[in-house]
């Protein structure tokens, strides 16, 4: 868990929304031709994609999130869209190879990829999710590696008020950032923005845009807000160690998993919206004179997962739902050198059409042990 004192080493700067606009402007000039990516409003729904100006971003809305429920209202506390940076880094469908009937490769390089990308306004949970994807995919998955390498700057928007479904302080992935970013900002109120630098680029931006150091009162209310956000979330779940211990003990508790997944339909929404899920199927799309080997997002909650010729290694849905949970909390750390697979963003819960609540599942597993 991030401790507030650790944060206090960083110098804070204060400005207005218009300064945020200037930050974007500065970056545009600094990285001429770069594409800016972030949460943006499209047909009044937040998605993840290219942003051209601050007005594309959900800066004048707040999201209300509950299990199976999402709504936007006027405000300035936007948390998350269902889509995460994964939509750019590991798109839902991507070609991995084009082959001719003679087994020759048809231009297997994808030149249409942007070569400079600035991630702008992404949340701490999503930043941590990128680190998880890096640990699994970078240097191995050609598309991910290429896209990830195109990211030249990361600007974070910190949350000072979590959504009802968030629990990043439990997973140690937010709401504030400590490392892995260039510049972070948080919206103290509708117009006041607090900035902090996370790299020399961040310092350069602050200097170039002439941001002033935050005054005592602003610093205080920023830390208060962070502390409040963390304490709200910390009541939502037991400690991580306790969760993990309970999961370990209950791996073989078939009955429990059957109960927990009773209402799950295996639709896979939780996996698709999860910013760290990376599973793909690979299919051939055959055209008249060539075939495209295409990777498609798949989900461990769907029936395809574990299916093999003449059998099924995860036939019952409870086994797959269990894998989803165990993967996030027990297996990822072993696969990534210690990173948890869950960054506490709550998307799986908000976007489950049945409203299954991950937090509730975890609490029940812990209760089973108690």
């Amino acid at each position, binding site marked *: 868990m991030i401790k507030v004192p650790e944060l206090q080493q960083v110098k804070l700067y204060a400005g207005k929304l218009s300064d945020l606009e200037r930050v974007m402007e500065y970056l545009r000039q600094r990285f001429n031709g770069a594409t800016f990516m972030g949460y943006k409003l499209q047909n009044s729904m937040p998605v993840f994609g290219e942003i051209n100006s601050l007005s594309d971003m959900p800066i004048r809305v707040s999201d209300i999130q509950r299990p199976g429920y999402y709504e936007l209202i006027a405000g300035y506390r936007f948390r998350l869209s269902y889509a995460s940076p994964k939509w750019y880094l590991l798109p839902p469908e991507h070609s991995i190879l084009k082959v001719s009937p003679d087994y020759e490769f048809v231009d*297997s390089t994808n030149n249409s990829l942007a070569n400079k990308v600035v991630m702008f306004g992404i949340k701490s949970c999503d930043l941590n999710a990128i680190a998880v994807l890096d640990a699994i995919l970078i*240097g191995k998955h050609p598309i991910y590696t290429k896209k*990830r390498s195109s990211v030249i700057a990361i600007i974070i928007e910190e949350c000072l008020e979590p959504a009802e479904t968030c629990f990043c302080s439990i997973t140690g992935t937010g709401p504030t950032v400590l490392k892995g970013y260039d510049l972070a900002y948080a919206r103290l109120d509708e117009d006041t923005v607090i900035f902090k630098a996370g790299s020399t680029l961040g310092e350069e931006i602050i200097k170039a845009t002439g941001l002033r150091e935050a005054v005592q009162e602003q610093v205080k209310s920023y830390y208060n807000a962070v502390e409040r956000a963390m304490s709200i979330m910390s009541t939502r779940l037991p400690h991580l160690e306790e969760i993990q211990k309970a999961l370990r003990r209950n791996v073989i508790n078939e009955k429990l998993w059957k109960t927990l997944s009773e209402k799950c339909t295996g639709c896979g929404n939780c996996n698709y919206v999860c910013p760290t899920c*990376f599973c793909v*199927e690979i299919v051939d799309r055959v055209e008249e004179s060539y075939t495209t080997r295409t*990777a498609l997002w798949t989900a461990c909650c769907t029936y395809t*997962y574990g299916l093999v010729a003449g059998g099924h290694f995860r036939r019952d849905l409870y086994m*797959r739902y*269990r894998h989803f949970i165990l993967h996030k909390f027990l297996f990822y750390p072993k696969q990534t050198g210690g990173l948890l697979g869950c960054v506490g963003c709550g998307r799986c819960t908000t976007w489950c059409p049945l409203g299954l609540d991950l937090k509730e599942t975890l609490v029940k597993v812990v209760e089973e042990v108690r």
Partner: protein
Amino acid sequence: MTLTKLENPFTFKRALVVNVVKEAPDTNTYIIKLNETYTANPGQFNMIYVYGLGEIPISLSNLPEHRGTYTLVNHTIRIVGAVTRAVMLHVGAGSQVGVRGPYGNGWPMREIEGRDIVIVAGGIGMAPLRPVIKYIENNRERYGRVNILYGARNPELLLYKYELNKYTVIPNTKLLLSSDIPAEGWLHYVGFVTDLINYVDVDLKNAIALVCGPEIMMKVAIKNLLKKGFKNEDIFISMERRMRCGIGVCGTCQFGHYFICKDGPVFRYSDIEEYFWVEGI
């Protein structure tokens, strides 16, 4: 990051099928020519690509044979589904396929030097174990006694029937065959191959076991081996899961926290014991 220069790991080598050997009604061995010096450990696998249809993980079923500028590799393939169907129907001598690999760890040939070896194979599970036998034959002095236990549902389904008998000529090697059901002219054991574990003739204090076959056969094999006195850390099994990439990025081959494609397919039983008996993990 220099990673932008990452070569596309999904590109494959073009390879020519030079011969096809019929093994069983639903199984053929394909001898494939790769225009390079290709090496692989026993127990490793290749991803075999059939145009327009997809890739399948297939074990090398023999040691790669180096012939000057090219290498011959064997793949024994059983027809079961979408892609293997096409291999059976459309791939013959003169056909092309795509090959990428070798992948996976393979059997611990180094570590088991000096030990007595029990090989337990069920059905198509013999394919990844055949190179082990060849490897031991070539390096006979490095290994102790060898017992090969091999069974299939019926005698017709046994692979490599044309050479099984030759295994008995390898010094200090015993071959025990089984058929699940009685069959005309079958003089070997009738019953499950795992029953044969009772009859192994090795120094149990110094023996290791290599097991490959359908998962339920491997479960029984492990029970019987443990009963016989084998230690957890002396049993190795080759695991199977759906596999789409072979290189640890598609996520579909997970088994507990392991990726079968890159952490396996061969596992020491003691390393996977916690998962092995949990159904569907």
